[in-house]
């Protein structure tokens, strides 16, 4: 720490801070919601370069980018080498976080432009965790063997960590790493799961493409049985949610592989919680899970980000999208009736934004809200999708409101296994026998036929 020093407070073009409150906020970053941090170590590791030298250069680049980007009335301060705080008093905390994530993105791109060997975040996380873990344990980092589930596996009993002892060791190490704020590898994240609980996907919800009149996509419906302890429902922790998200990818991959092997592919919509993607500890593990999906299957993989509008995102959608974009076919964002800012989805290349009909609202109220949501989204050029349609009239109403993709019990009920692409007109959903209601595993059908 001897190299770190407190540097004077800087502002746009050397301007001093306007008020004592401003000065207090920037000196006490932990106490103001309008102060945002930039940590360069999150952005930069080079495989073949001296880290200290690279960090000094990254410092210079970061200061240039920050100074060029700050506007009047905005300030920054270098807390120590590679560590900055931005004070954005004119922006709301959420807008400030978004702005900070844009600046971080620019710094990262500039660093990689100047030092082309700089590696991206997930690989960096891998290198950092490996190095730190090896230093602390004084031994080579032990890598457990992840056995990907194959199409013939009974997923309900298969463990993805081959060795129970290895599993316990990794689980312990994973919790230690998390408590120190390190990013987890996928095997560490999965190690925290109980052995045997590897199949979060309970059913598949068919999705109807209204314009193409085709049911060709299936959303993974997770088993949402709550944890019950003495009759109190326990909310899942961030770790449990992240683990479920990663396991969902693994299970979906297995199902997709099976469908492709049978020459009956469908699009698979895999949900992921925004809280997983915006948590440093879990993001790299999740990206590793998505990144492990073979190239041949990625064109069938659709990621659906489940966002909780009550909590502002830490990094912003752009940051999250940059990791997912090249690892799947396309990205959906699920929000709710309160959403009123759709341009951020359009600006970041989200394919469609959607919501669920509220099960407790009367159909007329649902349709009124859905109609308003669709109009607002379409004004920003966004496609919209909806699910949870619980009456036929809601289904027809959603179509009339311009929803491009619809799903729910009144479209086609959930199935145990995707049945591949099928043509479907609106009238077919009024016929009880148009779509399978029983489990339709292709192999069982083929076996029965033979």
């Amino acid at each position: 720490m001897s190299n770190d020093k407190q540097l004077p407070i800087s502002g746009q073009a050397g301007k001093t801070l306007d008020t004592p409150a401003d000065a207090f906020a920037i000196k006490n970053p932990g106490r103001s919601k309008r102060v945002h941090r930039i940590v360069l170590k999150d952005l930069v590791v080079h495989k073949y370069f001296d880290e200290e030298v690279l960090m000094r250069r990254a410092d210079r680049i970061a200061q240039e980018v920050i100074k060029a980007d700050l506007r009047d009335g905005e300030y920054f301060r270098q807390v120590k080498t590679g560590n900055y705080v931005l004070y954005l008093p004119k922006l709301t905390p959420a807008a400030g976080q978004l702005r900070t994530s844009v600046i971080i993105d620019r710094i990262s791109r500039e660093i990689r432009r100047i030092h082309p060997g700089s590696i991206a975040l997930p690989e960096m996380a891998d290198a950092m965790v490996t190095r730190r873990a090896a230093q602390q344990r004084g031994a080579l980092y032990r890598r457990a063997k992840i056995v990907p589930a194959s199409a013939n596996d009974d997923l309900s009993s298969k463990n993805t960590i081959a060795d129970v002892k290895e599993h316990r060791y990794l689980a312990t190490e994973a919790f230690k790493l998390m408590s120190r704020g390190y990013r987890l590898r996928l095997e560490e994240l999965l190690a925290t799961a109980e052995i045997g609980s590897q199949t979060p996907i309970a059913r598949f919800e068919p999705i109807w493409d209204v314009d193409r009149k085709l049911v060709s996509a299936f959303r993974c419906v997770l088993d949402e049985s709550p944890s019950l302890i003495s009759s109190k429902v326990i909310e899942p922790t961030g770790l449990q949610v992240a683990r479920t998200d990663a396991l969902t990818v693994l299970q979906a991959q297995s199902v997709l592989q099976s469908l492709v092997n049978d020459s009956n592919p469908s699009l698979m919509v895999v949900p992921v919680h925004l809280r997983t993607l915006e948590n440093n500890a879990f993001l790299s593990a999740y990206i590793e899970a998505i990144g492990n999906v073979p190239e041949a299957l990625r064109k069938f993989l659709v990621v659906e980000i489940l966002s909780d509008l009550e909590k502002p995102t830490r990094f912003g959608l752009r940051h999250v999208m940059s990791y997912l974009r090249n690892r799947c076919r396309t990205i959906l964002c699920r929000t709710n009736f309160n959403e009123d800012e759709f341009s951020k989805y359009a600006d970041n290349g989200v394919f469609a934004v959607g919501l669920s009909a509220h099960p407790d609202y009367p159909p007329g109220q649902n349709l009124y809200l859905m109609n308003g949501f669709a109009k607002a989204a379409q004004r920003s050029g966004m496609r919209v999708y909806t699910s949870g349609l619980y009456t036929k009239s809601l289904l027809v109403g959603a179509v009339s409101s311009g929803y491009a993709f619809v799903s729910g019990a009144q479209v086609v009920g959930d199935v145990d296994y995707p049945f591949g692409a099928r043509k479907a007109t609106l009238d077919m959903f009024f016929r009880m026998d148009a779509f399978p209601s029983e489990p339709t595993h292709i192999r069982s059908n083929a076996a029965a036929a033979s």
Partner: protein
Amino acid sequence: MSRANIAIVEDDASVRKSAEGLLQAAGFGTASFASAEAFLKFERRSETDCIILDIFLPGMCGMEAITILKRELPNTKIIVMSGSGRARDNVIHETAKRLGADATFNKPFDATQLLAAIKSLLP
């Protein structure tokens, strides 16, 4: 024209009341219901000549009710009403007609047009 019986199935009480007043003033017998289930339990439903049916009802929705009514009361005329203002409202009207509705209207309905439609549907 002998007095015809018209059922109004609409969950909004104010719309029900205004429709009843309009139809009674025109000389029709009326009965109103807040849900499709309530109408289907009505013991004199077979005497209904025409049903004015809202599409977005709680419980059994209007679309489902059309298919049941066409089966149970094939001679009863069905006029469907739905809220307006959606991008493709014709989808609702066309679907309702394909299922068996005889006429469709947007809400709020025009009284003159509604009465003209009823008179054209009833003998």
